[in-house]
């Protein structure tokens, strides 16, 4: 009997993962692990989460075939998993509802979170409002500028947003600051981690909460006629990708392709392609690929997409890359924006810039494989938050001369 790669429990995924944290956080992580282990098999918890997914998030999310877009993908059949239609506009809500419920279960009253694009922050602020939890969101100052609208959304939902002014002023520094808050306030506070990275139990737990994406999509594809030839998803920390991949891990014929943000190009220093351009190391509590210099200092990452602008990646992706089970492709800012424009114009669906990286991957793969191929793309978020940035990219704002 071959062993399944699905739902790998951690703390280690091959050589990756683990828990490299200050001792002061160990008790809280143990408590969380223990609570989660019990909750995941407790019908009271799983039923409540399923109810919220249905009645609040709007699950199951549909799949949509996009034939006009697919003409730019070698005529392949392209099907989108519509996580953009979830309440709050992205896949992030799937994870946040699970962790917020868990927070209530362990009797804590305050949640903190980091956010890059603001999607996870908005989702966390939403769950906090729903479940009556105090909520503080850490966001790099550069990201608060890139995503001003999401800052306002979080504040309107009642969350406190703290702009982080240290370091590179992006997602990575927001995570550092959230850890500092947690180590100070761990007695009352739970850290709702936004991606499938960080110390155990986060990589496995976040993956489990996002797993619904792939489970639904796999059943929907089978109902539609068969498994796809490939599943594509964008990878920053990698939660939407691992959520989309997990249910397909044992379908050996299905290629799994994570699209990393290549910024100005992986050959430059301005990118966020951690698996393509990084080396194994320890960052933010687990061992994985990292963009770093010879001394182990984390290098700044760059991406037009704040949600992918992270110099680390979830440990399960590092493992799948080493195993050769998943491929990780770099997609530049310009390529992602081309896909953003195409999907908007050909299908009337405006993707998040993050998700546009996966769309470009599908264009490339479709051109390689031709019209017989069927490609499933996880459309992890919608592009409303990116309108200003996209308008600037395409020079569509009034009074703006190139």
């Amino acid at each position: 009997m071959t062993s399944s790669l699905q739902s790998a429990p951690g703390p280690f995924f091959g050589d990756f993962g683990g828990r490299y944290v200050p001792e002061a956080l160990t008790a809280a992580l143990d408590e969380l692990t223990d609570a989660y282990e019990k909750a995941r098999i407790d019908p009271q918890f799983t039923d409540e989460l399923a109810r919220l997914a249905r009645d609040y998030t709007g699950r199951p999310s549909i799949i949509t075939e996009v034939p006009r877009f697919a003409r730019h993908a070698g005529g392949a059949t392209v099907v989108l998993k519509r996580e953009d239609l979830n309440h709050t506009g992205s896949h992030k809500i799937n994870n946040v509802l699970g962790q917020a419920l868990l927070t209530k279960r362990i009797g804590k009253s305050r949640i903190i979170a980091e956010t890059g694009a603001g999607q996870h922050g908005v989702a966390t602020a939403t769950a906090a409002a729903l479940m009556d939890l105090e909520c503080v969101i850490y966001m790099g100052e550069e990201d608060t500028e890139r995503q001003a609208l999401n800052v306002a959304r979080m504040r309107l939902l009642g969350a406190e947003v703290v702009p982080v002014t240290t370091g590179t002023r992006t997602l990575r520094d927001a995570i550092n600051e959230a850890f500092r808050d947690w180590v100070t306030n761990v007695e009352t506070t739970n850290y709702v981690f936004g991606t499938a990275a960080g110390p155990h139990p986060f990589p496995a737990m976040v993956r489990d909460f996002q797993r619904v994406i792939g489970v639904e999509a796999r059943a929907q594809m089978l109902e539609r006629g068969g498994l796809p030839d490939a599943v594509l998803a964008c990878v920053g920390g990698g939660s939407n990708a691992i959520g989309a991949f997990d249910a397909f891990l044992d379908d050996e014929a299905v290629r799994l392709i994570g699209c990393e943000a290549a910024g100005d190009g992986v050959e430059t220093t301005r990118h966020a392609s951690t698996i393509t351009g990084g080396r194994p190391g320890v960052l933010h509590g687990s061992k994985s690929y990292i963009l770093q210099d010879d001394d182990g200092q984390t290098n700044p990452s760059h991406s037009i997409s704040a949600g992918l602008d992270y110099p680390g990646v979830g440990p399960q992706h590092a493992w799948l890359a080493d195993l050769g089970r998943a491929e990780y492709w770099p997609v530049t800012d310009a390529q992602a924006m081309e896909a953003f424009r195409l999907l908007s114009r050909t299908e009337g669906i405006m993707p998040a810039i993050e998700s546009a990286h996966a769309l470009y991957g599908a264009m490339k793969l479709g051109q390689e494989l031709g019209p017989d191929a069927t490609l499933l793309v996880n459309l992890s978020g919608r592009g409303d938050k990116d309108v200003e940035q996209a308008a600037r990219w395409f020079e569509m704002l009034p009074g703006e001369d190139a």
Partner: protein
Amino acid sequence: MSALADRLDEIRGEGRAALIGYLPVGYPDVDTSIKAMVAMVEAGVDIVEVGPPYSDPVLDGPVIQLAAAHALEGGVRLTDGFRAVRAIADAGAVPVVMSYFNPMLQYGLERFAADLVGAGGAGVITPDLTPDVGEEWIAAARARDLDTIFLVAPSTTRERMHLTAAASRGFVYATPLMGVTGERAAVGDAAERVVSEARAAGAPRVCVGVGVSTGEQAAQIARFADGVIVGTAFVRCLTEAATPDEGIEALRRKVSELAEGVRSAR
């Protein structure tokens, strides 16, 4: 044999606690930081914690964060830490390194241990590495007879106190307040409780880092701990000074005050 244990026992024999001072390497520049570390030894620090800066210091408060970021912008390298270690050993104090894990991992754990011993270092404090995932590092350190110093916190369970006491050599580093590094108005009773719990778990020597910034606070901790660890208050002497020389003078005064504190306790 542990140079740290020997020194701490000798100091206990003098009827006092040790004063342990932390400074980041490369702040405001490498040469000045080494000069400052030597000045601390001359002014009465017994053990110096040499801190190679790291880009993502999740356990540090704003003062040390900013100094570390400045040092990294100035181009400090991990190997500069070994130069600092050598200078401290030559000045007659015991040097230990306090480093986040990834820089050590990238340098190579065995190579790091070998080069630290070569420079005259006694051991390493690892703030983001616990014994559970520290096996490879502990093996590399033991092979070179280096001390491994792990941290305990108020949230540390009894079971983990035992685990940490058993894996530590030299001393156990107690952090009695939850939070990042930084000065505190009150250093309080929590410290005494964590120290006695660590001792009960079998740690022969326990030093405390709790945001001490005055001689009086140092005396308070020195009543029950083997050593008083001071970082932020020393770093601030350098960050607030108009010139490096003034910074080092302020540092000498602060060290003298605290050295008197650890001697006035018992």
